[in-house]
């Protein structure tokens, strides 16, 4: 199956128009010695054959475990209207809306997405999306480095370790100083944050699900003329003090929770919002509202002079394709949930997590690590290696959580448990009973 409409007859006619005798002649500009001997990819398959093969592969994945694994990526319910809308060919088979007049659908939806992100974060401006939360954090850090002209990045180690390792990878060649700090209050950072600091990076709720007020950290950043970067789980922002209220200059994070399937790691959605004063330093695409010659409202890409296709090596970022369709998903999802709905959803997650906390900590030997408050995720310590406990629970149909030892070698027995609205009381019960049984 090759999706090529032209027939042999079409090709004959076209070659004749070109004065060629064979398809091979089309490649005359490739010197003979540079030609390859061929491809070895197997025979073509029909749609039915590939479909069966993929259905077989899908069946090998245990996607039906009751999922208490979060760690920044959550198993939320996705209303059916989301997929129904983003599956419209006009949306997903378009590209970047370079031709505004025939792309008002994409452009207006970007503008609406930006608006929703601004309202959720309280910030002054949002871009059209970045790849994911981790690359978003790198972009945010680089924005801070560029804007402050300084080179030191102070990151709390309660920031998602998946992002911290990414940040390390990206910055290794850039002669930056990356400091990861364990702090239980802003005071603990006093020595570390100084006038060389470009940014202070704080996640809240943090990787361990803890809710706290980040304002003191951001105040410390500000005192040192460093930028305050907040990494936030968007669902929590429906409820929590906004990064803007807390004094953040930049907010980034992963918005997978806003209607995107887990899909084994992607595509996801990096969001970024900044204070108004950093708009022109922001990476990525941006849509703006404007008018046509008749004064009719329309939308177009704007601030393109920041971007690589205009500024090349001087651009604010190298990003070109982003996660537009994922941003549309998030927008449709936020529209469906609405002002009240998203807040209530956050509360529902918290209530279920509280119940799970209650059930799990009632098990002898299981302790809460933190004292709270929490959002929808929390750490417990087990009387054995958490990896072993989790692996034993798989047979009970449970993905019981994320064993923290992988990123925190000093926490081998700690388990991070996430509870979304999808987890029922019954499943929480099975988890509690199962965990008790395998200890």
């Amino acid at each position, binding site marked *: 199956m090759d*999706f090529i409409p032209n027939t042999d007859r079409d090709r004959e006619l076209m070659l004749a128009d070109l004065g060629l005798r064979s398809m091979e002649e089309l490649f005359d500009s490739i010197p003979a010695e540079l030609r390859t001997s061929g491809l070895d990819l197997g025979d073509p398959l029909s749609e039915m054959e590939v479909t069966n093969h*993929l259905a077989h592969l899908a069946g*090998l994945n245990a996607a039906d475990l009751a999922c208490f694994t979060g760690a920044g990526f959550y198993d939320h319910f996705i209303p059916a209207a989301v997929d129904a809308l983003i599956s419209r060919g006009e949306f997903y088979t378009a590209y970047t809306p*370079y031709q505004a*007049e025939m792309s*008002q659908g994409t452009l207006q939806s970007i503008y609406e997405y930006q608006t929703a992100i601004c309202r959720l974060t309280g910030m002054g401006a949002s871009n059209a999306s970045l790849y994911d939360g981790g690359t978003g954090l790198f972009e945010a850090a680089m924005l801070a480095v560029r804007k402050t002209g300084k080179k030191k990045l102070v990151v709390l180690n309660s920031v998602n370790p998946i992002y911290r*390792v990414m940040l390390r990878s990206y910055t290794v060649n850039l002669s930056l100083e990356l400091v990861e700090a364990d702090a239980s209050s802003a005071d603990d950072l006093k020595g570390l944050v100084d006038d060389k600091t470009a940014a202070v990076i704080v996640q809240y709720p943090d990787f361990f699900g803890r809710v706290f007020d980040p304002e003191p950290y951001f105040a410390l950043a500000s005192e040192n003329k460093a930028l305050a970067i907040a990494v936030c789980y968007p669902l929590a922002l429906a409820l929590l003090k906004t990064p803007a209220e807390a004094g953040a200059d930049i907010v980034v994070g992963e918005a997978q929770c806003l209607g995107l399937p887990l899909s*084994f790691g992607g595509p996801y959605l990096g969001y970024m919002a900044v204070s108004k004063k950093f708009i022109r330093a922001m990476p990525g695409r941006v849509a703006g509202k*404007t008018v046509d010659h008749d004064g009719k409202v329309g939308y177009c890409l704007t601030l393109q002079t920041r971007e690589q296709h205009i500024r090349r*090596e001087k651009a604010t970022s190298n990003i070109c394709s982003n996660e537009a369709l994922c941003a549309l998903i998030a927008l449709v999802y936020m529209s469906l949930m609405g002002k009240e709905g998203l807040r209530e959803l956050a509360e529902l997650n918290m209530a279920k997590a509280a119940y799970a906390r209650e059930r799990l900590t009632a098990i002898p030997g299981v302790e809460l690590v933190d004292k709270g408050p929490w959002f929808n995720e929390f750490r417990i310590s087990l009387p054995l290696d958490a990896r072993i406990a989790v692996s034993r629970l798989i047979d009970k149909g449970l993905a019981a959580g994320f064993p923290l030892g992988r990123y925190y070698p000093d926490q081998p027995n700690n388990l991070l448990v996430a509870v979304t609205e999808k987890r029922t009381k019954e499943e929480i019960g099975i988890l509690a009973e199962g965990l008790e049984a395998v200890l």
Partner: protein
Amino acid sequence: MRSIFEISVPGRRGVELPRLDVPQSAAQAAELPAELLRKEPAALPEVAEVDVVRHYTNLSRMNFGVDVGFYPLGSCTMKYNPKFTEAASRLPGFAGLHPLLPQLRRGGMLAQGALEVLYETDRLLSEITGMAEFTMQPMAGAHGELTGIMLMAAYHRDKGNRKTTILVPDSAHGTNPASAAVAGYQVVTVPSKDGVMDPEAFESMLDDQVAGVMMTNPNTVGLFNPYIKRIADAAHGVDALMYYDGANLNAIMGYAKPGELGFDIVHLNLHKTFATPHGGGGPGSGPVGVVDRLRDFLPVSRVVQRDDGTYALSYDYPKSIGYIAPFYGNFGVILKAYAYIKALGSEGLKKVAANAVLNANYLRVKLGDRWQVGHDKPCMHEVVFSAKDKVEKYGISALDVAKALIDEGFHPPTVYFPLVVPEALMIEPTETESKETLDSFVAAMARIADKAESDPESLHASPCLTPVGRLDEVGAARKLDLCYVEEA
């Protein structure tokens, strides 16, 4: 159309939440102290499901995609996106799979199907490009470029090389210099001659400060650089690495392999060559392949096949550049590309290249009598025309041509890129278009050429058949409005 925020009505609801099935006391226990809460609720739209469905259905109707018609946006390979790959990516066994599962103890067995997709796609892409191994992690082409340059840096660091610059031809896509810069390199631009990077100029600029050379071949003008072997040899002579921007791979699949042309690092755009949809700007996927001597530097995690045929994640690569994505890349996109490659097979992909090149040359010849071509010689998968003569004679710019094409029912070509052709109209028809479609495009372009001569004013007024006319982009950038604010 009014925005979703403007049709919001206080108290209106879109989705109902599941009931609280745990004791009310849990809800109370979860409550947060007031000082941790936001002062005002986030003013998200308050709309019903019917409102949302109508709003986005109608917005989509103001959009143009490949499913609507011909979309010859040069360099972007807007080929038809087969529907069966969309369905496959929505199978619950893939869409519902948490990426951390295989990182659990014994967890690899929970995701064998997904790991096989990653592993096999790596193998297929390696075969197509002549590379030794791919990382599937980069989430778009530019992300692949950055990854590739990070691999270069790791290689040079490992060898103790101190190198500071990257050479890039003048016809390069903006992401190439931008990626090199983001990775910490200086960018030096190499001029073209006869449309392709001039090997002599290149050699004169090459020194041992050069860490690497970023090229695409065929390049953005649609021409194959026949000096590529010479260029690669020279680069390798100073231990610079050759980087292949795979955005144009569609032209040569089955005919030439970047690895055999002397390239060391390749990124591919699955959302171009391998028919995954562009999504209105993304998500894409930009896997990066390397030759054998660079394998050690590839990002972790990596998917390996065990002796018993099962798949596992592996992290033990001390020279690795580390983690560049949270997990394994844009899996949902990779899956579609995998399905596409399996469907086409060796034969199909070669046919893709041949038909892409045929279609581009057909347009080159058919449009050639009315439109000035950038480089008057056979092209590969795309062809660049110039509206320079039309500007000079009739005041009709590439932009005017683009807008007139909209009224003809076509998506315009890429305009004003590549920079090396003035008033560029960069046309990439792809292989998924039929002769009939190309002929109707040629006819439309002829009508526009006629109008340029007879009634240029009418072209300045285009497009007329769209929901909005030409927009005030200057005003948009000057008086920024990026976010809807209710009137007071």
